[in-house]
């Protein structure tokens, strides 16, 4: 794991929360080169590269907030999708 910065895009970045390797760039700072907003394509966690390590680094991310693929798959539905009105 390594932290991604605009000037260091070649390094491998994984999601701090679920360790998924597919990361998308959502936005870049209006002042060029200051920070990027990234998002995990699996758990949708979103972070700014300039945030503290406890939010951006897999190694420093608190265990209590980490998610697994099973957590995502089994997440409770809120609110539950109701049956279609015409369904009998």
């Amino acid at each position, binding site marked *: 794991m390594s932290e991604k910065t605009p000037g260091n895009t070649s390094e491998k970045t994984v999601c701090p929360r679920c360790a998924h390797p597919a990361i998308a760039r959502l936005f870049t700072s209006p002042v060029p080169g200051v920070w990027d907003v990234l998002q995990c394509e699996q758990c949708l966690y979103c972070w700014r590269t300039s945030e503290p390590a406890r939010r951006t680094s897999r190694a420093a991310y608190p265990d209590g907030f980490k998610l697994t693929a099973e957590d995502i798959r089994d997440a409770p539905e*809120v609110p539950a*999708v109701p049956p279609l009105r015409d369904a009998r």
Partner: protein
Amino acid sequence: MAYDDLRSFLDALEREGQLLRVTDEVMPEPDLAAAANAAPRLGDTAPALYFDNVTGFTDARVAMNVHGSWANHALALGLPKDTPVKRQVEEFIRRWNDFPVAPEWREDPPWAENTMDGDEVDIFRVLPLFRLNDGDGGFYIDKAAVVSKDPEDPEHSGKQNVGIYRIEVKGGRKLALQPVPMHDIAQHLHKAERAGEDLPVAITLGNDPVISIVASTPMKYDENEYELAGALRGAPAPVAPAPLTGLPVPWGAEVVIEGVIEGRKREIEGPFGEFTGHYSGGRSMPVIRVDKISYRTRPVFEHLYLGMPWTEVDYLIAANTCVPLYRQLTEEFPEVRAVNAMYTHGLVVIVSTAKRYGGFAKAVGLRVLTTPHGLGYATTVIVVDEDVDPFDLPQVMWALSTKMNPSGDLIRIPNLSVLELAPQAQHPGITDKLVIDATTPVAPDHRGNYGNQVRDLPEAAAWLDRLRRLAAHR
């Protein structure tokens, strides 16, 4: 006086010494949230915060803690900033008596100055988004008013809803929204999803201060929030039709986001540090597709920090949670004197009441649990005598200390409904609830040994005035 937009209220706060401009450069994280986390610790006169020098942004303007003190809450209602809490609640009750006051349709809303449509929509280009608490799953919008209609009765203006819900930003034109089942928008979504349809919504940010208050008031399903805003403002609420959906939105908003909650779709959302002072877990929640954004030039992003109470949200949902409960209780029990539901949105409710006969106070407590708000929130109800001020916690503790006997005064009811965010629930959405009768027993309830209660001396009130005057001239 009535404020028609956020900017005029920020000007008023500044004139009153209730706006603190932070001009030093700050980081979007963790500085903005940490400052708003800290601000209410300054006490009941804490100021709003305004930032316009945020690292990496060229044009960010962020307002926080706008309602985050009793002084600011008073000013939002056009009251002197030193108005005591109980007086603010009483004035809120008095003005609600003027409900409904029809809104005023007004042309040329400032938010029509700029627009983004369809694939060009990118919320990150409009708002300087940032994270609040460490464990939040992303950047949230949590002080916007979300407008929707009952899809089965769209012409019924009362069933239209204006509410504040947590909204996670998941992409340039994708949001998530939490409709708590007890809230009106959940009923709208339920009806749309049963029909296999999307639910159109308009999300308005940076509203005048009374819109934020009414949008977070637990009104009845068929009561119109704009009509309450008119009563509270003492003037009709200015509204305008949102250009894409036609939904009525506040004329003075900074930003109007339109789109649909995509029917029958759920996707991972959260966690988010909630008003309970705890994070919700990650859950699968509804998704919004944004189709249009309209915004004032150089919009102000109003955001709200919430965490372990008290924070801004606790001031925002204090008086406006007390008042509907008071109104609903007094419809059947005019003996009720006052309701304090300002702790964690009424998860605890304190009611003062006179008694008709022995056992009466327990009936009042049970009624709290079956009010619309009580169904989702009230988990512990404390009932005190009519001469106990429920806003004066030392008095409430005196009542608990001397009036409440666990033998007979604790009513525990198993497996009642509660919002799923309530951390104490055995299973999300289900909890036991408790009514504590801390009133003096009256006939035919002859428990205890109360004899004669010590009362303030008749001359004490005059002496209080005299001592205040003497103290003021020390």
